[in-house]
Each structure stands twice: as C-alpha cells, then as structure tokens.
C-alpha cells in the first residue's frame, strides 16, 4: 500500500486501542443537582483523550470522579462504574491511596508546595515508597527530565519551588505526578494560566508522555485539544454528546451540537 494510505490506516487503529478507563453509566450529583448523566466512555490506553465542552458541561467533574477527589466533600456523590484494570474504582473498598498512585492529576493553576524543588518531587515518592537516598535522587532526576524541566533546575534543586516561573511550576507539578509512576494522568486545563511558549512546552511534553501513560486532558482551548489528542469527547449539560477520533471530531463531527460548538455557533 502507498505510505500515506498506510498511515491513514494506522491512525484509524487508535480507535481499536484497548480501554484503560471504562466509564459506564456514570452519574454525578452535587447535592441534588446532577452534573453528569449516564456517561459511557472508553478511554484508550497510551493515547491522549481530550474532553471539551462549554463551562458547566461536566468535564472537570468527570476528572474529579476518576480520581475520587470529590470524596473530600460530603454532599457530592457518584453513581455508576469506572473500571480501571478490571476493578471499579468508585467502589469504596478500592483503596484511595492505591487509586491516587495509579491516577495522577495536574490542575489548572500550578500548585507547588512551599518548599524546595527537590522536596516537591520527592514528597509523594517518600510517601509511597521507602527508597535509599541515591535511588530517590535518581527518581527525582528522572521525573524532572521526563517533564522537560531538568535542564532548567538541575543547578538549583534546593531553591524554593515558588521562585520558578508559572510554566516551570506547572512542569514541576507534572514531574511530581510522574515521580510515583502512575498509569493515568488527568490534566485539568493545565495551560490556561500559562504563556504561549510554556504552553507549547507542556503540549510537547503531553505528546511525548502518551507513549507510556494514558492521558485525559480537559481543555477550553479547542486548538489545543486538536493539537495534542488522538480522541476527543464533547460534553454538554452533563451528557457525553459525541466521542471519536480527534481528526473526525474537528473535520466532520456527526452530531449537530458538536458541530455548533466547535465551529463557534453555539446558543
């Protein structure tokens, strides 16, 4: 077959990737208000899945549900199943500590701890694993290298994390997440507070990381979704409206509501 056509076939194969996160009939409630309704979504392994949709559509809620961060709040409740590696992580018997180890999350605003760069990365590692000092240093370096921050901070690992720029702080948060070697990384608008160059660096990083991790990114920036993801899910009013290959969603969406949203003809 001609090379170009072969590549087309390879792209199509992404849709056949096995599901790493299998969301089934997911509902979510803030008190009595439903924020998600009957969501079924099979997030493919070793790929970037983008979640797009207008404010209040439930995209951040979905991320909060996948790592059960909502449990911190008494009146929030999830229904349905989220299957990771054959087990329902919403089941209260599933250890939260094991879940957080498997599923890392990076937030919209960089959230470094007010301590040194080194300790920021080592903190979670020390919590989950007892490592000899030398190995701990290796793991810190490895995480900083993978998050493309090493060259910029290697000479000041004991400087305060707060002395870094916004973009560097965000990459530090990604390094902190990577350090414990999770399988899934959830990114909630990771670049919305960053300048274009820092944004490009993070996007490049996401692109590289997808080989080893399963990544879900929530973004308001549709161009970003188009640039970094292989699959895209469009949410509206708590429902999954359309889910497909990113190239299909952005060139030929099947559902009118998706089309209206991505072309800017909403409401």
């Amino acid at each position: 077959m001609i090379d170009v056509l072969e590549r087309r076939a390879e792209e199509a194969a992404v849709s056949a990737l096995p599901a790493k996160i299998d969301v089934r009939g997911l509902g979510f409630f803030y008190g009595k208000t439903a924020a998600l309704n009957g969501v079924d979504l099979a997030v493919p392994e070793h790929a970037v899945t983008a979640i797009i949709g207008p404010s209040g559509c439930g995209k951040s809620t979905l991320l909060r549900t996948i790592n059960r961060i909502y449990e911190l709040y008494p009146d929030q409740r999830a229904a349905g199943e989220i299957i990771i590696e054959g087990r329902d992580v919403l089941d209260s018997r599933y250890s939260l500590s094991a879940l957080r180890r498997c599923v890392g999350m990076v937030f919209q605003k960089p959230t470094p701890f007010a301590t040194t760069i080194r300790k920021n990365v080592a903190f979670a590692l020390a919590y989950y694993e007892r490592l000899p000092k030398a190995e701990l240093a290796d793991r810190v370096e490895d995480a900083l290298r993978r998050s493309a921050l090493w060259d910029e901070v290697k000479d000041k690992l004991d400087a305060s994390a707060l002395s870094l720029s916004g973009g560097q702080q965000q990459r530090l948060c990604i390094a902190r997440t990577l350090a414990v070697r999770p399988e899934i990384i959830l990114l909630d608008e990771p670049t919305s507070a960053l300048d274009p160059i820092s944004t490009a660096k993070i996007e490049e990083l996401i692109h590289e990381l997808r080989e080893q991790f399963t990544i879900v990114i929530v973004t308001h920036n549709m161009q970003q979704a188009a640039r970094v993801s292989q699959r895209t899910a469009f949410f509206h009013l708590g429902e999954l409206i359309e889910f497909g290959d990113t190239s299909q969603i952005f060139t030929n969406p099947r559902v009118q509501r998706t089309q209206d949203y991505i072309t800017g003809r909403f409401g």
Partner: protein
Amino acid sequence: MQSHGHTLKAFDQDLGDLRALIMTMGSFAEAAIEEAMRCLVERDEAAAVQLVEADVQLDELEAEAERRVVELIALRAPMADDLREAIAALKIAGVVERIGDYAKNIARRVRRLPKKRHVEPLSLLPEMAKIAVGMVHDVLDAFVERNPEKAKAVCQRDDALDDFYESIFRTLLTYMVENPQNIGPSTTLLFVAKNLERIGDHATNIAEMVYFAATGERLAEPQPRDEGA
C-alpha cells in the same frame, strides 16, 4: 447545516465574502464561455482578442481567493464544515480559473474559422455550451447554498455533455471524410467541442468538492457507462 450565526460576526462576514468572491469568479467564467461562443458564431475576431486579454482578471481573482483562504485559516482557525468550506473554496477557485482558460482557448480559435462559409456543426456547439454554462452556474449555486443534492444533480448532467461531444465528433469526422477542405475548420470545431466537454468535467469536479464540503463524505464515483449500448 449551520443552525446559528457564528459567535464572532466577523467570521461569518469573512466566510460570506469568500463565497461572494467565488460567485464573482463563476459569473466571470460563465460570461467568458458565452462571449467566446458568440464570437465564434459571429466570427467576431476583435471581441475574441479582448476576451483573451480579459482572462488575466480571472487569474487575479483566483490569487485574491487564495490570499483570503490563507488569511481565514490563519486568523479564524475554522473547524468542521467551515474548514471544509474554506478548503473547497481554495480548490474551486483554481478550477474556475481553469474553466476561464478553456473559454480563452475557444476565443483563440475564432480566427481559424473561415469568415464567410458556414460550417454546419457550428449550430450544435452553442447548445452544448449552454449545458456547460448551466452546469458551472448551478454547481456554484450549490456551493453558496451548501447544497449537496444540487451538486450531485450537476454531476448527472455531465453525461448529456459527453453524448453531445460524441455526436459532434462523429458528425465532424463525416465532414472531413467527405471533403478534405473541411479538415481545417472541422478540427477547430472539434477542439472547441473538446473544450466544452472539459468544462463539464471540471464542473463535475467542483460538484464533488461542494458535496464533500457540505457533508464531509466523498461523492461516490458514478458507475462507468456501458460504451457498447
């Protein structure tokens, strides 16, 4: 397909302007074909020369369309059907320019026809041109309306044009066999018929682009006709 106006009104304005520009190119090409045929029938050599010179305007319009599509993509980042429409506009502008070239070719052949003597199949050619012009007109309407069904209907008319060409070809061949003096003018008319037939093919290509822009699907290739029938 668009259920709402774009949130950014300037975007709709840009897209509308681009459509209008493609329409202007189409009208120009249609008028050029009609004028070329008039020059041919009336042996109006002076007007034919003018028509050949005027073609440069169509080239300029094409360059303008290209510039606007690049700008639209760079500044507005169109998505989905808007993106397909912008790409289609770019390709259609190129094809319409080519259609203009065929009209120019026809105009160039006017001086090759004998001034006084009537060459019979000449009466068939304006009919053929009418079909070709109609196809160009309707396919650009379909583009502006984002109407895939109208585009599809244009494709179906290409068969009629091909039939016309076949019949003119046979007639001219008979003339040439009958009298070698007919070979010169008949060959000229044969080229004109071929040009018109090619215009129909290009209109069909545009129809496929319009169909893709409107639906995101490729128009199925028509089944080859049984030549023996």
